């Protein structure tokens, strides 16, 4: 189980793109929190503030034609894979211009054209389909990879076990990305994971596993590339353990009674992937602010777009039940 070392560093330009992308996601999700508190957003929302490095690192490493399944915490994956913020925001407002045309919501963001086969509100629910999509790629001899995102808590559900087992048995091109943030809602890892190294879960299937620091987006990108290449070249699936931190509540509005406020404050200071990349790039305040201004405008515009967008008609609910 190789620990990935940054073989080759990425160009500064590429890393600036990553920063911009992470900051866009960050500002987008902060806006989501704000609009939810303002009572504008219906439903049940989960943001991934602190985990942007996973979304950007993995999604930037994917290629056209690759597909993925996301989770209840899906905004970052969706934006990082190229869905326009307007389409994501419009979905959160339940509008027809939304990426799921108002039928899905935050926990069901889709963008099939870009390989997003759906965020899933059932923990582990998206994994078997990625094994199956990868099987289709193998049967059709297409050089494509199916990527499944899931959290550490999801490794406790039987669906996880069966999906990875089958993927390994059949040697299909799939990458299983564990966003290992050490919490399942209010349940700390020690209450749900009886083991130190989550890669031991992959051993139960003899699956190749890679561990990487999720707060270092460059490292995530390189590990993801390695995993995707491994799978794409017919070596079978890979388990990618991405150590990360959720710097906010489980859901928007979560008072986090279950964890220590100071711990969160400390993590925000030491483990913010945006800050880390900014420092690595030695960006001046001006440089950073310029990027920030740019992405903030995009986010603001997405809210305007969403508000101005079209409500479905009530009877539209009867559409799309059957093909």
């Amino acid at each position, binding site marked *: 189980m190789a620990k990935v070392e940054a073989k080759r560093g990425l160009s500064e330009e590429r890393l600036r793109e990553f920063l911009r992308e992470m900051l866009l996601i960050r500002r987008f999700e902060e806006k989501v929190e704000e609009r939810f508190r303002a009572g504008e957003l219906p439903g049940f929302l989960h943001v991934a503030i602190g985990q942007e490095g996973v979304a950007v690192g993995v999604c930037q490493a994917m290629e056209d034609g690759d597909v993925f399944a996301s989770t209840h915490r899906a905004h970052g994956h969706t934006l990082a894979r190229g869905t326009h913020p307007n389409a994501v925001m419009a979905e959160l407002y339940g509008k027809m211009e939304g990426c799921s045309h108002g039928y899905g919501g935050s926990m069901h963001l889709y963008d099939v054209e870009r390989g997003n086969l759906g965020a899933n509100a059932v923990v582990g629910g998206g994994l078997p389909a990625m094994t199956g999509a990868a099987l289709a790629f193998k049967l059709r001899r297409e050089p494509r990879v199916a990527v499944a995102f899931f959290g550490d808590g999801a490794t406790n*559900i039987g669906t996880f076990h069966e999906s990875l087992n089958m993927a390994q048995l059949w040697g299909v091109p799939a990458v299983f990305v564990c966003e290992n943030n050490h919490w399942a809602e209010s349940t700390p890892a020690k209450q749900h994971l009886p083991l130190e190294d989550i890669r031991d879960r992959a051993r139960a299937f003899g699956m190749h596993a890679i561990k990487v620091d999720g707060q270092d987006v460059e490292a995530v990108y390189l590990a993801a590339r390695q995993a995707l290449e491994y799978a794409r070249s017919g070596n079978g699936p890979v388990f990618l353990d991405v150590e990360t931190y959720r710097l906010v509540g489980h859901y928007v509005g979560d008072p986090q009674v279950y964890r220590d406020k100071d711990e969160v404050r400390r993590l925000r200071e030491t483990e913010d992937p945006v800050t880390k990349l900014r420092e690595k790039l030695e960006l001046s305040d001006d440089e950073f602010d310029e990027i920030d201004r740019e992405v903030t405008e995009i986010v603001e515009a997405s809210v305007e777009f969403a508000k101005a967008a079209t409500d479905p008609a009530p009877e539209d609910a009867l559409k799309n039940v059957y093909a």
Partner: protein
Amino acid sequence: MPELTYREAVRDALSTAMRRDDDVFIMGEDIAEMGGSMGVTQGMLDEFGPERVRNTPISEIALVGAGIGAAMQGMRPVVEVMYEDFLTLATEQIVNQAAKHRYMSGGQLTVPITIRTQGGAGWSPGAQHAQQLEAWFVHIPGLKVVFPATPTDVRGLLLASIYDDNPVVFFEHRMLYGLKEEVPEELEPIELGKARVHREGEDVTVVAIGPLVHEALKAAAQAEEEGISVEVVDPRTLQPLDEDALIASVKKTNRCVVAHEAITRMGFGAEVTAVVQHGAFDWLDAPIERVGAKFTPLPFAPVMEEWCVPHADDVLDAIRRTVGRDGN
């Protein structure tokens, strides 16, 4: 008399049973420090400790199955499945194991487990967080199925379910947790299998469950202004079903509407309809009308969701349809 919300009433029944009886304990995802995703078990960790208020991993089938195993040892576990939608992960254990151990063993075993879950629309949770699946479990011999609509009922029926020696699938509704009412000083169990008449009437019987009980009562008040006298009956326990109470009511009113939030097709209303048309055939002056959700997954956009899920006006329309006809 104390005033309790539906949420507090559930908590009171759980805590009362746990104080009385060491064999009662609760298990579920995030029920300890967080007090459950609906806040039902808040504070219980402090009173009862982590052994009896047990956080579990995200493992619905083992969570329910472990409860079955503890129940076979004579304990009375109450397991919480966070959303009804996730019951679909545990159906094997509920249907093939909990419901059948007593039977397959020729009566050697009992499985006194209570499986609490909740669901319901009205807050745009989307298609995987609001299904109403109570009808499935009514189809399974060996299970009891309870779906209370008020704080008083949920408190007394949960206590009865915990002490019932059979597996009980206990449905709560997301939108009822905040509902407040005065409840009896003394917590008394409410016998399973007894319907409750919420309102007496002469012209139409509305058989309603869960949130539709309240929608039906609104519709009844409205109907009264139109000169239609509506009787509202809540079976409360779907299995065993108080068939006599439903049939007796319809024999009095000669008309029947069945209402629930679940999908109409193959919903619990179909069973009630089949029972009532059989037991009160010669008394019925109009076809039994069913009120339920439209035949779609639950859409996210509030305008669509609102339209798919039945409300008081849908019940009222159904009432009007039944009385709009002459008897024969």
